[in-house]
């Protein structure tokens, strides 16, 4: 499957407009074929402790970014819904913001699999979590979700 920059803009616009993206404060910093990078600045409602993120917003960010990477490889208008999601939390996520970098491992016709690494950024980047996301591809004729 392939896409073009116009569709990637559509993906970015659609994801940016998601209420969950606004509520959590996610921002896109890169979107390319099979790749996505999002950032999440630390906020008080992301944590019990200043400067450290809870696992929950990290988990949400990883799912969000992995699905966005997968959708970039679908035909224009394509969407995806998460089927399964596994995350490993490797160390405390302490920093001013998080960076999630997702890459598609396999763009299948029915399912797409993406890997996501999440880094906590202080003076340097620290890999704090890694996730695998499997999503069901929804082509325009059967589309029900923008992303999930």
């Amino acid at each position: 499957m392939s896409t073009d920059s116009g569709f990637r803009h559509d993906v970015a616009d659609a994801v940016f407009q998601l209420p969950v993206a606004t509520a959590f404060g996610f921002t896109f910093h890169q979107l390319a074929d099979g790749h996505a990078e999002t950032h999440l600045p630390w906020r008080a409602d992301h944590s019990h402790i200043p400067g450290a993120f809870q696992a929950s917003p990290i988990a949400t960010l990883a799912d969000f970014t992995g699905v966005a990477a997968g959708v970039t490889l679908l035909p224009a208008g394509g969407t995806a819904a998460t089927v399964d999601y596994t995350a490993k939390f490797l160390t405390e996520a302490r920093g001013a913001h998080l960076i999630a970098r997702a890459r598609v491992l396999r763009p299948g016709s029915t399912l797409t699999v993406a890997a996501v690494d999440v880094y906590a950024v202080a003076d340097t980047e620290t890999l704090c979590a890694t996730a695998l996301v499997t999503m069901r591809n929804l082509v325009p004729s059967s589309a029900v979700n923008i992303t999930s």
Partner: protein
Amino acid sequence: MSPPSRIPGHVPDGFVAYSHPSRYLELIGPLYEQDDDPAVVGLRIDERHTNARGFLHAGVLVAVADVLMGHTAHSAAPPDTGLVTATLTTDFPGSAQVGDWVTGHATTRRVGRRLAFTACEFHTDDRLLLTASGVFAVVTAARSTNS
């Protein structure tokens, strides 16, 4: 007119405010718990939780599952035990929409000296939305930031 089960903001009888409030839950909640079992929680899906078509975003439910499993394991652990999430594994057999009342039920499988093992399921009506398992690491209180 919407049936009572789908009225925005409606909380079914038997549910009360979640007993572990946090700023993060204020962001994604309000979350409720069953008044006789805090391992059962409820969430009314609204626009903040969904994609542009009104379907519940998987990442939101993952976050709620993490919170529920962490607190359920914590309640089964010895006093002063701190837990941080080590692993989350989730499957999504179904979907929910704006207005749905979603309930989750967590169980603690084992709390050891170093690790705690939990699982949960989320439903709306009779539909299974999510199954999940979580492994939590026991840490000192100063580092227990995730649960």
